[in-house]
């Protein structure tokens, strides 16, 4: 029963991203996210010898009194991470072969992830981009942040795209603090370009996850007759035969996905494929299970 409501097409009928996110996320095991930093919380991690420049507030003065050696007490931070979702709102995200376009599916995922992070008191932010950065909500854990995030996500409509790299250069300036960066996009670019473009985000100490949103028709087109296909972003047209769409295209698409996955792994970037006909909670659960212990 619950599964039925988590069907993307059923979720599409629910107005309001907050409700969608709540529907998807509630019932999950909260606290799967774990900060990559050590912070200030109750869970003890380790002692470390004091080095000049360390904050004196972190010195364990009890140990110092007993041993006259200054040690810093370190805790595993649970809530202090920044989660920033980069939502691709390019024209190609408007593609749909069924009732849920990719942009909607991406919005649900973005909303669900931010809702999940907000639920465990992470600071959350969102960047909506196509050719440019169209919308930016800086990461924050303040009250009302969730509403701002959802508003920004809801506002995201497919725009234009000719250059994949351009918005990421802009994003590098926005994301100065360390945290988790989730890029939700259809990545219609060669794997090398994708990794080369997104990698700089990881260099700043961010944990980078690529969430690849694809329509099932994009993976295996079901053409029954020769058709002229029109590129949604560039406007180019091409006559395509069903035979090609049935045999050669899926192979090339699989090679593309595999290439993207392997290159991402090689670069220490997380990669996850989300196909829009899958149930959203199932998709999220798989994603979080894979990342368990890391986020």
């Amino acid at each position: 029963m619950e599964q039925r409501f988590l069907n993307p097409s059923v979720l599409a009928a629910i107005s309001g991203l907050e409700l969608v996110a709540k529907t998807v996320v509630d019932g999950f095991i909260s606290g799967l996210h774990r900060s990559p930093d050590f912070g200030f919380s109750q869970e003890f991690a380790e002692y470390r010898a004091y080095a000049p420049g360390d904050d004196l507030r972190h010195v364990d003065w009890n140990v110092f009194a007993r041993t006259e050696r200054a040690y810093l007490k370190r805790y595993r931070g649970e809530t202090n991470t920044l989660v920033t979702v980069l939502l691709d709102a390019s024209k190609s995200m408007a593609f749909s072969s069924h009732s849920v376009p990719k942009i909607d599916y991406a919005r649900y995922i973005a909303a669900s992830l931010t809702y999940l992070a907000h639920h465990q008191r992470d600071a959350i932010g969102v960047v909506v981009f196509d050719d440019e950065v169209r919308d930016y909500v800086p990461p924050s854990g303040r009250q009302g942040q969730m509403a701002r995030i959802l508003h920004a996500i809801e506002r995201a409509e497919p725009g234009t795209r000719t250059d994949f790299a351009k918005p990421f250069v802009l994003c590098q300036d926005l994301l100065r603090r360390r945290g988790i960066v989730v890029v939700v996009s259809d990545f219609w670019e060669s794997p090398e370009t994708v990794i080369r473009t997104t990698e700089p985000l990881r260099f700043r100490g961010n944990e980078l996850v690529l969430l690849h949103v694809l329509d099932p028709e994009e993976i295996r087109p079901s053409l029954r007759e020769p058709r002229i296909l029109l590129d949604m972003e560039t406007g180019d047209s091409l006559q395509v035969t069903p035979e090609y769409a049935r045999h050669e295209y899926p192979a090339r698409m699989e090679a593309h996905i595999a290439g993207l996955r392997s290159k991402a792994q090689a670069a220490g970037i997380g990669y996850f494929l989300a196909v829009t006909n899958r149930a959203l909670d199932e998709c999220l659960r798989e994603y979080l299970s894979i990342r368990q212990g890391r986020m």
Partner: protein
Amino acid sequence: MGFLSPWFLAGFAAVGIPLWVHLLRRHRSEPLQFSSLMFFEQRTQSSIKHRRLRYLLLMAARIAVVVLLTLAFASPFVTRSVPPGEGTGSLLVMVLDRSFSMREGNRLAAAKTEAASLLNSWRPASYGQVLALDSQVHLLTQRTNSVDELRAAINSVEAGDGRSSFGELARALRSLSESEKLPLEVHLFSDMQRTSMPSGFADLALSSDTRLVLHNVGSEKPNWAVESVTAPRVVNDPKKVRILATVAGYATPAASRNVSLVVNGKTVSTRTVDVPENGRATVEFLTLDAPHGWNRAEVRIDSADTLPADDSFLFAVERSDPRRVLFVHEGRQRRGLLYYKAALESTADGAFQVEAVSADSVANVAPEKFAFTVISDVASLPPSFERALVQSIKSGGSAMIAIGPAAAARAMVPILESKIAQSKYAARSGERFLALGKADEAHPALQRTNRWENVKFYQAFDVDPGDARVVARLTDQTPILLEKRVGQGRVVVFTSTFDNISNDFPLRPAFVPFVERLARYLSGFEENSVGYAVGSYLELRREGSASRALEVLGPDGKRALSLSEAATTQNLQLTRPGYYEVRRENGRHELVAVNPDRRESDLRTIPEETLNLWQGAPQGESAAAATPNEPREERRNLAWYFLLALLAASVVESLIASRYLSTSKETA
């Protein structure tokens, strides 16, 4: 195989449409938007080849639809030879004319013999049926394959007194063909009288699968007949009677005929008349010496022809004293009485005698003893008289009520109890008067009155008609003449007076015919015709009247109705010539004379060309040439089969097309 409408075959040209759509039309497809063409490569395929492969079945179905539709419209048929009345599932229908004219010579016997000989050569593999024809068609058997039953039915046919109607026969054959759903082979044994034809030849049309074979058993023979008699129904003074008889000769030479007037079996007068060749002559009898009561009268000629049954014409005459009319008036005003009495008693035959009684002395008068009652502007009637009058009307009597100022004072119309709303005045000066406006000129009160020409009304009373029928209105829409049925009788209301004060009607020429016609209407003289034709209906009681029994004695002196029929039936069909005695519910006794339809006396036959046309045979070919015992060519229309195939092809086309449609939808 042939085609009834071969010009529809031009529709085969439409086969080109599906061919063009499927094979020749350039394949165009709407561009399909896709998120990225990153992994696609240009590939092309011949669209014609593609279409041909994909939609061949659909194209075949569409071509089949066009071809079948064209063939169905072209009405293809196959011809084959069929023995008479056999094997085809056809119904052999034998129709024997039993009209009055079949009494001539041995026409009926000849018809029976021919029908029996047809039956001898008939192989009963299919069904047969015997019908008898006069003014109606009578089924003598149901559909049967028993030769004995058919032969018995043929032998049972007796000559009747009705007239034959080929229009009625055609109508019956059309409905028989429709109900039996079988091709009909109709054999008509008749004397083919010209008078049996309907007014329009279209009425003779038969359904397409009916084959008609005519057997003419008659021939043109000279015949004299008493065509009609005009006589009064009631005779008051035997010296003032005028009886006109018309003697007609059909296909006859000029000749002298003796015409006798016979009353109650006794010849009272004889005249000799010269009847011109193939023409008519009129004889006049100016006295009728007959006793009081109903008399059986007859005009007879000595024709010495082969059809003696039409040499006499029956009629019934009642000898009676003048009928008394009760005229109730206010004692003071006698002008209305003067005018009404003068008008009614001035009629030629003196059929009515007016008895005037003032309203205050009418209490002990019995209205049922009068032909009808006139109430002329009376303020009030004694209750006992009013009750007796209402009772008399309900049982078939009549009354006429004139409304004047005295009656208006009561504000209610006597007997009817209708409300008198107001008095309508028009001044005598200038042109300010009312005249007759809308009127039912078919009503007896307005017949022969020239629409009450020049009659001026100065005062009339607006009576609420209620459920009464307004016969005439004045120009300002005030009802001037109303009629209402009360029980078996009727009441006529004249909303003005007869006294030359409220109007000048009594001084106008229209007044006498108005009074006379209305008096005849109210006394029931008009309702009965002098003579009825065989097959016509006699009205016994009016609709909605009480079911009191009446009695009808037929020409043979026996009751014509059963007890239950006598209590309920409204009309009686007069099936035999002779005198019918009717004792009505109101106790009145009546004699009705019935004669065969005189159109049957004309023995001239229908021209051969017309008969051939009716049979569907080519001009000049003899009707007898189409002998029933020879095999005949039968056309079997195949259009229905093609229509069924068309339906199937349409369904197949829809299924295939919808499958392709759903595929393309999925692809989009």
